[in-house]
């Protein structure tokens, strides 16, 4: 474990902040770190860029984390996990809520390397569509219709022609992952799709077994990014 200082914080909303570290983490989009907030807990967080995490307050530790002050230190293990695969052609990013976090990183990474990136970003309300200016070519959906398409992001995706993409990347809550999976399976696109999954983790390095899936693979070490074909049969 090593520690990094928090340099800067962007407060996107009441419950979501991006914390920037004082140093760049050698990493790839889709990877995560185990972040230890002293006096609280160590939690897994997807990188939202090589030098940041974007956090939503959902529990005791994340609530304390979004209130952290610049200059404070956090413990880091990682980056860990299998990242998203690369394309420099047409890419579709499908984000649900805070699931956008690793896709901010992927968006910038692919765009900088010549890919043509389209984003579908859904949340419950417009307040939760945080940091949406970061996405250059994006469409939005909200459950309450307060911005963009009224409905969830899977419904928005169903309205789109998905045939011309080289890669599709999906990250969001479990129900959204499942919805997207079944649609993409129907469209015969699982072989070009990658899903980033989330599970309760302890060690982050493939040993403790807290995050194993139905097929025996470990979200922390064999994932968190899985190809659609990996998930077929048990999801």
């Amino acid at each position, binding site marked *: *474990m*090593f*520690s990094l200082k928090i340099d800067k914080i962007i407060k996107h909303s009441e419950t979501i902040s991006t914390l920037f570290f004082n140093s760049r983490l050698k990493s790839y989009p889709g990877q995560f770190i*185990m972040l*230890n907030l*002293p006096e609280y*807990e*160590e*939690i897994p967080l997807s990188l939202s860029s090589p030098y940041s995490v974007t956090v939503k307050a959902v529990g005791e530790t994340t609530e304390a984390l979004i209130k952290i002050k610049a200059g404070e*230190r956090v*413990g880091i*293990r990682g980056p860990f996990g299998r990242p998203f695969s690369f394309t420099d052609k047409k890419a579709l990013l499908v984000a649900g809520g805070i699931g956008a976090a690793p896709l901010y990183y992927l968006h910038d990474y692919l765009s900088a390397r010549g890919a043509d990136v389209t984003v579908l970003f859904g949340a419950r309300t417009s307040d939760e569509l945080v940091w949406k200016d970061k996405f250059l070519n994006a469409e939005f959906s909200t459950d309450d219709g307060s911005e963009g398409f009224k409905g969830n992001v899977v419904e928005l995706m169903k309205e789109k022609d998905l045939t011309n993409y080289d890669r599709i990347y999906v990250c969001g809550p479990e129900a959204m992952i499942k919805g997207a999976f079944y649609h993409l399976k129907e469209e015969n696109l699982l072989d070009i799709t990658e899903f980033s999954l989330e599970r309760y983790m*302890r*060690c*982050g*390095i*493939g*040993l*403790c*077994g*807290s995050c*194993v*899936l*139905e*097929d*025996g*693979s*470990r979200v922390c*070490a*064999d994932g968190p990014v899985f190809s659609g074909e990996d998930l077929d049969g048990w999801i």
Partner: protein
Amino acid sequence: MLEVELCKMKLKNPLILASGILGSYASSLNTIAENAGAVVTKSVGLEEKEGYRNPVVINLAHGILNAVGLASPGVEKFSEELKRFSKASKLIVSLFASSPKEFSKLVGYFELADAFELNLSCPHVKDVGLTIGNDAELVKEIVKAVKRETSKPVFPKLSAVSDYIEVAKAAEEGGADGIVAINTLKGMAIDIATKKPILSNISGGLSGEAIKPVAMKVVWDLYEELKIPIIASGGVTTWKDVIEFILGGARAVQIGSAIFYSYRIFYSLKESLIAYLRKEKTSIEDLVGLAHEK
């Protein structure tokens, strides 16, 4: 060539998954079982146990430091979970408890187990593990109590930080079928930036390459003193480590922390052992304890 007989259990190879590693769900046990001779489950007790708060595991240069705290869903839920075990290898259920009575109660839940491991050596949880594993008389009583409940092999897992020869002999007298040596060694780490211990429990157990010579010495000593077989555990990372432990007296070898390097390590070790045994024109069974010959 790779087959070994361990207390009348026929193992397809001498490689066993160590307790506490990927042992909480049938799905991961099934993945390992494909290439292992046996798998040991995560230790289970009578009641559900949450374990310690994260951070509970740290990877160091030569090993792993952990204080998971025997997190477990409790015996009823866990015995249900194990019903999905594939039986691709032998299944050894690891038990933790604080008294002979509790240990023998646990045994009844696991009809499907091929053998039992008794956790008498976890170094970071109060009232169980090492707390009772240091007491030779108590260990003997525990083994006796468990043996009254089952005819299956029973393997107490001991610590190197006890009078292990005395404890192992007591276990043997109590009817133990074999001894697993060793568990993790007490250890800790401090973060110099925050100036605080890293593990939430402060103290933990060290496993992995760093503890291999310690385990080797214990295996060596026990082979000299005991009649029952020894299962080595501690730092096995390469096929050479497997051979070393077998030569030192182990009949089978447990692998845990090395999964940090690869989920496929059981397959790799197995293939490497086959190559070695072919070259040497020998078998695992013929190598057990060979280094003790004068």
